[in-house]
């Protein structure tokens, strides 16, 4: 059923990584992504890979679970790698297949490109895998709030994400119901050409939009009744507090970043 779909790919757990403050994890993910673009040699990649492996092991998220969610993205990476292999020229010619050839620089670029993308995707997905969507929202709000003075709507963005997370399952269920109801009235979504198929979506989309507006109207009223008045005056039940764990993680992150920078400069 549609309601079984997990969102944000959260893998429930109680590991050390899971329990880190979401702000620390968001910053760590950003630093990691930045580090991947600093790295330009094999040793650097080895360090980045080791760091990621350590995070995966500590988080206890099964590797198969991580990879399963990334199948489609890997296809894109393979495509990019192949393009790079054949398109980028320079250095010795390694292989020649008819009009196509792989040259040294192409191989080199393709390898780094692939390594960087794979680490980047797995690294950032570790954030969503180990952080509940709702904590992620809280973390983003907390990190953006200093910028609210210069007009970044931190609270509003976070509230929008919270509500989206809450209502996506409801809307999926609603879609399922509407589809079935229209099928019962003889609607056919499977056959015909592209245009007639697109047309056949109208009986689903219109009721769905109207339903979404109805939800928005009701919800706005309910939020007002519960004294919602935007981000000011608002307190939080789970005020985020940094613990020793978060300090330790921050130190390790700093060490990692330093190592990556040093290697780039030295080698």
């Amino acid at each position, binding site marked *: *059923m549609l309601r079984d779909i997990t969102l944000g790919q959260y893998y429930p757990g109680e590991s050390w990584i899971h329990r880190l403050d979401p702000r620390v994890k968001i910053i760590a993910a950003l630093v990691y992504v930045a580090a991947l673009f600093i790295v330009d040699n094999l040793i650097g990649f080895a360090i980045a890979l080791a760091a990621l492996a350590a995070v995966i092991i500590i988080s206890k998220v099964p590797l198969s679970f991580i990879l399963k969610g990334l199948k489609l993205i890997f296809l894109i990476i393979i495509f990019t790698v192949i393009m790079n292999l054949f398109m980028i020229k320079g250095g010795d010619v390694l292989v020649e297949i008819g009009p196509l050839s792989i040259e040294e620089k192409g191989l080199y670029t393709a390898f780094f490109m692939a390594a960087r993308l794979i680490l980047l995707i797995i690294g950032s997905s570790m954030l969503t895998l180990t952080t509940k969507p709702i904590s992620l929202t809280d973390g983003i709000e907390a990190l953006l709030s200093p910028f609210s003075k210069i007009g970044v709507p931190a609270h509003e963005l976070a509230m929008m994400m919270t509500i989206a997370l809450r209502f996506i399952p409801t809307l999926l269920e609603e879609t399922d*119901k*509407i589809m079935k*109801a229209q099928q*019962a*009235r*003889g609607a056919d979504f499977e056959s015909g050409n592209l245009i007639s198929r697109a047309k056949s979506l109208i009986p689903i989309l219109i*009721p769905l939009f109207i*339903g979404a507006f109805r939800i928005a109207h009701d919800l706005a009223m309910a939020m007002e009744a519960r004294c919602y008045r935007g981000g000011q005056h608002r307190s939080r039940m789970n005020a985020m507090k940094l613990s020793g764990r978060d300090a330790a993680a921050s130190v390790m992150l700093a060490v990692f970043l330093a190592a990556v920078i040093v290697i780039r400069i030295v080698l």
Partner: protein
Amino acid sequence: MSIQVNNLTHIYSPGLPHESVALDDVTFSAEDGEFIGIIGHTGSGKSTLVQHLNGLLKPTSGSIIVSGTDITGPGVVMREIRKKIGLVFQYPEYQLFEETVEKDVAFGPRNLGLSEEEIEERVREAIGLVGLDYEAVRERSPFDLSGGQKRRVAIAGVIAMKPEVLILDEPTAGLDPKAHRDVLEMIEKIHAHEENIIILVSHNMNDIARLADKVLVMDRGKLAMQGTPEEVFAEEERLEAIGLALPQPAQLMKMAREKGLAFEGSFLTLDAVEEALYNYLKKDQI
């Protein structure tokens, strides 16, 4: 026209850890012109059952024979099933989408591939049958109508397909008492006019007791009981064990019996109770 359901079983996510049996060996039949009531808790399998009857879900095993055709069999054309069996979902007004009432009601018949004259004829008839004035509403947007009227339009959309079996899942949910009565009256009128089989899913025992020829009681995917309303509501203990209430008149008489008053027989309607109490009280009072 008849419908025969044999050993219908439906398992959600078979083989997975969250496998669940939604329907377990359900067997029943309905004959021409019968009015069937289905009762049971939310999650008892009522909705899963009616979705099978319409071909929206395929059973894991078992068959559904409608006038000699097994609609669960391979190569069955869905359009043929939908010509025979109409299903009105809960809160059907949430499926309206056309600019005018007329166009919305025509959606079903058009999908059946009928001719324009036939469609217009059916739309006119269906809108009349649900108690709306065809000329007054045909050009109006369905979204400007009142809640009760929207529901009628949505029901008309299914009736216009002229199904031989009309299934209604909680057609009165969320309506006020007046609209509730109106919708039930309308269903009775359609039943009399079309002489079709009606299958009414409802939580309202009073309505079921009053309208149904046969009652099916669903409990945790199984067909727990079936029979006339008198037979089913006589089994007070079993219904209580399932957690279903009696119709209110029957509740009153049950409580009176428990206090030691001698009222024999079944009291499913207010009229029956009124008669019994009148006879009981008049000897003392009149």
